[in-house]
Each structure stands twice: as structure tokens, then as C-alpha cells.
């Protein structure tokens, strides 16, 4: 069915945009927060951390990417199920693991790699289901 195929393709495109923006954003946040150091959970510590985060360029670049994630997320949720989009976006774990290894030089154990594989298989299963099981929103036919 053409409309079903179109729905699936545009959902996958938006999920891909979500994953790229979220992972690049998270990576930049981690990079920015590592410059700031561990946050101390006292009133003064939290205020100090807040002041440092809002004046950090890397944090703002990360926030820009997370805004891109938010827009693509809001868009895809306007037509697709929440219980479809959320797990489908999990294939970003593979991307995240590669990014963490390549750019942050974090070591990843074989057990973690197996976990990533399981997540990817789970995401493939979810991806086989219908992206939308609830009623069609009024704007959808426009």
C-alpha cells in the first residue's frame, strides 16, 4: 500500500534525523561538561555549574543539535506512535558507542557490544510493526 510505504519511509527519515542530532548533541554536552568538572550538589555548586554551562560554547552547540532533535521528534510524533518512535530511535546506541570510542577514546567491553547488538535486533523488530496504530490526525490528509 503506497500510503503505508510513504508513512514508513518518512518516519524512518525523521527517526534518522533524531538519532544523528541527539547523539552529536550528547557528545558535545559530554565534552563541554568534562571541561566544567563534576557538579557539587549544594545550592552554590548548582548555581556555579549553571553559570558555567550557560557560558560554554560547546554546551550551546550541543543544545543546538538537541533542538534539531526536538523538532524532528515533535514532527514524527505528530503522525507516528510514541511506542514506535522511542524504541526505533534506539539504534542510535550503535552510533553513540562508535562516537564514544572514536572521539572520547572510551573503552567498550565485548559485553557492551553484545548489548548494542541486542538493542539493534530489538529496534529492527519494532521497525517491522505499523508506525501508527491510533487515529489519523486532521492535518494528516492535507
Amino acid at each position, binding site marked *: 500500500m503506497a500510503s503505508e510505504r510513504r508513512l514508513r519511509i518518512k518516519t524512518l527519515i525523521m527517526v534518522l534525523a533524531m538519532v544523528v542530532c541527539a547523539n552529536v548533541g550528547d557528545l558535545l554536552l559530554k565534552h563541554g561538561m568534562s571541561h566544567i568538572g563534576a557538579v557539587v550538589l549544594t545550592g552554590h555548586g548548582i548555581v556555579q555549574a549553571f553559570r558555567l554551562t550557560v557560558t560554554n560554547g560547546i554546551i550551546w552547540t550541543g543544545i543546538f543539535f*538537541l533542538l534539531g532533535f526536538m523538532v524532528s521528534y515533535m514532527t514524527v510524533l*505528530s503522525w507516528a506512535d510514541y511506542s514506535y518512535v522511542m524504541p526505533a530511535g534506539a539504534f542510535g546506541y550503535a552510533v553513540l558507542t562508535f562516537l564514544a570510542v572514536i572521539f*572520547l577514546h572510551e573503552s567498550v567491553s565485548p559485553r557492551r557490544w553484545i548489548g548494542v547488538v541486542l538493542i539493534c535486533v530489538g529496534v529492527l523488530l*519494532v521497525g517491522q510493526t505499523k508506525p501508527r496504530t491510533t487515529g489519523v490526525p486532521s492535518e494528516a490528509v492535507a
Partner: protein
Amino acid sequence: MRVILALAVLVLGSTGGEIAITHGMKATGEPAKLRPRALLQFLARAVCNGWFWMGLPLMALSFYSLLILLSWEPISLVIPTSALSYVVGTFGGKYILGEDVSVARWVGVVLVCAGVALVAAG
């Protein structure tokens, strides 16, 4: 203990916020086209929805919790562990949003959770 508490705020805040926003987006309706102008019009409609403004503070709380967690733990641990929200979110999608969660979707979510547990265990 502080990491578990921050994770609870991260998971419950993000799931509650996302369910509220999903409800708002469904009420808003999808953009006519995936073009910048149509997307801007869509976003303008979306921000006029009350559910959006209910979800945003919860997600902001979750976001700040994420920042704090990232200052304590490596990203390859924090982000996978925060994916506990996949289980909570699937229940929310089924029982709050009325989505039809098929057996295949549940199996997929369970596999994702098993994978997350392995990833978190390192």
C-alpha cells in the same frame, strides 16, 4: 545512590514530558509537507498547544538531570542506562495514549531492555 536518584528524575521526567508532548502533537496534526515553511507553521501550531507546555518543564528537568549525570559518569554508561525510559514509555504509550502495542513491538522493547542491561553492566 545519588546516581540512581538522578536517573529516576531523568527517566520519569523525560517519559512524562514526552507522553504529554506526543498527546499535544497528535492534537496539532502533522505538517502538510516536510519543507522549512510548513515545518515552521507546524511548530507555531504546536507551541500553542497546552500539552506541549506541560511536557516541556518535565523534559527540562530531565535534561538538567542528564547534564549532572554526564559530569559524574561516562557518556557510554549514562545514555544507555537512561534508556530504561523505553519500558516506562511503552507502558505509557499503551495505557495513557491508547496505542496498540503488538507482540512484535513488545518483544522488540524487551530485547532493547536486555541490551540496555548488558550495556549498563559494561
